[in-house]
């Protein structure tokens, strides 16, 4: 679509400036001409930015896994004998300043994080289902696409405000009014995490629907006709033609979705704030994700070297987790492409 537009523009440009067929310039690219140096510098700037602003944090956080770090001055690392690992993983070891058992928070948040990441699979199914229905070209198809995308451009802060109002625990709350109940949805341990799930399910599918739109349009129609001639019904066609045809998009959405799911911070922190219950991440820590734990450790008021180290450990657990998942899915994808 875009490429087509570009080529149209290009041909328009060419007719406007007829290219004189002169002898080609001497072959470039092997020598450091002034122009090549300009090219190298221009090409390098984003890479330099990446190396500084992603590379240094990566290195510093890696050092902070094993060392006490003074975050107010550059440099000054001292070996801390796995203090950060002990804080995060060992139940007997409590945080010196608070006497908090961080390990129980860690294992709890690990569970919640996996729970919220798995919601992304449901998101994907909703997106797929809606997209397949939309691909039948119902009346008002375009309007539906426009409407379905609206949640995606809402900020997570606004989304949380909306759903907190919906789940308001007063009798005048929307859900309580609908059900004639008096449940404190946002503070009740049984329901708290589900309120986050609802907010995610409301917001996330729009993206998949848009991505599937192009993918479904690109499935070869000749294959459908061939399948019809072979006597395939609608379900067969979906299973053997549509699904394989949109597999690359599904694969991309899966990686992007699950990675984003593991890194959930905003919606969890805004739906279920820390509050005054003494728990991190709301009542019984039912809204605590690994990102929130890492955030709490690095921003709490009595920041010490061991909390920085512990925060690094949690971040690296997440980093290895998301990197492994991306890697496995990439390998799977390569393998299925070979078949």
């Amino acid at each position, binding site marked *: 679509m875009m490429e087509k537009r570009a080529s149209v523009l290009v041909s328009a440009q060419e007719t406007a400036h007829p*290219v004189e067929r002169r002898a080609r310039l001497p072959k470039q690219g092997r020598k450091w001409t002034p122009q090549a140096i300009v090219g190298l510098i221009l*090409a390098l700037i*984003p890479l*330099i930015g990446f190396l500084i602003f992603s590379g240094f944090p990566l290195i510093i956080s890696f050092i902070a896994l094993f060392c006490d770090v003074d975050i107010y001055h550059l440099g000054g690392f001292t070996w801390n004998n796995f203090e950060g690992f002990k804080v995060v993983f060992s139940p007997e070891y409590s945080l010196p300043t608070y006497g908090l058992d961080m390990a129980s928070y860690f294992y709890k948040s690990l569970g919640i994080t996996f729970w919220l990441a798995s919601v992304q699979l449901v998101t994907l199914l909703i997106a797929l289902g809606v997209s397949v229905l939309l691909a039948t070209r119902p009346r008002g198809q375009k309007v539906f696409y426009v409407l379905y*995308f609206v949640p995606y451009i809402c900020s997570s802060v*606004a989304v949380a405000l909306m759903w907190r109002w919906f789940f308001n625990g007063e009798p005048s709350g929307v859900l309580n009014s609908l059900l004639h109940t008096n449940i404190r949805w946002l503070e009740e341990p049984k329901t708290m995490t589900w309120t986050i799930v609802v907010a995610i399910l409301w917001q996330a599918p729009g993206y998949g629907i848009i991505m599937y739109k192009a993918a479904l349009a690109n499935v070869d129609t000749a294959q459908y006709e061939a399948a019809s001639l072979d006597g395939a019904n609608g379900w067969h066609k979906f299973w053997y033609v549509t699904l394989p045809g949109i597999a690359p998009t599904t694969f991309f959405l899966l990686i992007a979705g699950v990675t984003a799911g593991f890194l959930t911070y905003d919606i969890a922190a805004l739906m279920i704030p820390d509050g005054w219950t003494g728990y991190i991440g709301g009542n019984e820590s039912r809204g605590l994700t690994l990102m929130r734990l890492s955030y709490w450790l690095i921003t709490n008021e009595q920041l010490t070297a061991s909390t920085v180290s512990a925060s690094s450990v949690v971040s690296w657990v997440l980093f290895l987790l998301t990197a492994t998942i991306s890697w496995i899915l990439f390998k799977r994808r390569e393998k299925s492409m070979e078949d």
Partner: protein
Amino acid sequence: MEQVQTNQTEIVRAKNKHQKRRKNIVSKTTILTVLIVYALLLFFPLYIVLITSFTSVEEITSTTSFIWWPKNFTFSSYGNIFTGDIYAESLGAPTLLISFWNTMWMTLIPLIVGLVVSGLSAFAFAKIKFPGREKLFRFAFILSTVPLGALSVISYTFFSMLGWTGTPLPIIVPGLFGSMTTVFFLKMYYEGIPDSVIEAARIDGLSTIGTFVRIVFPLALPAFVAQFIFGFVGRYNNYLMPLLYLDGDMQYITLQLFLAQITDIFPGDGQESVHCAAAVLGMLPLIVIYVFLQKLFIEGIAVGSVKG
């Protein structure tokens, strides 16, 4: 005899056709119903926020059930955001306006500068020959596939060591260098521009930058617009970065931070209408732009996020 047979088969065929069409109509209605129900589900929470923002504080506090349709529609909550703001005096303007202004410059400066830088870098990778270009590109590509999102919180240590926390610098400076994913996307797009066009510009005496500004940028404008929209939505809605780095400094407050603190800025019973009004105002700019440019938006987000 033959005539009769063909007649019969025709009748059967017609009957089948009729049944099929009826089945088609039924399934079409089912599909349409499902799609409409889904749309209603999506708009339900937007509705309750909008309707509450038009309900007066007195009406909210007077009943114990949710008000689906207020007796008197009022815009007073929208006025309250500007007049009832307890920080307005110390900030010199209502927090909403300050936060909107901050969001705009913190979004647009890194976005526009970053797009130009990425655009030039992609131009160099696609159209300027220099030794080792392909190797450098492959190196950059492999580096950028590492999923570094998990380290966004712990990057605090680095920016703290630089002494940048409590200032907008961590939000702005990294963006000024452009982004590698944008480079890959734009490079792909540039490859559709024939080398002869670039060469012709060079023969006409245009410099490298001149060729970019006069020839490449206009041709790749749709790609830039897509990237701009993608980046704008992401930065406008960002919550974690300002929260992490601005240290709650009210003079740097952004729109999302303002919305997140709205219950603290407007505390008390029945203030929900003000909170909802703020949520509406916070979402409004993007939704208005979206309504006018939906096609560009949808394309921008779909294309802008596909890597490499």
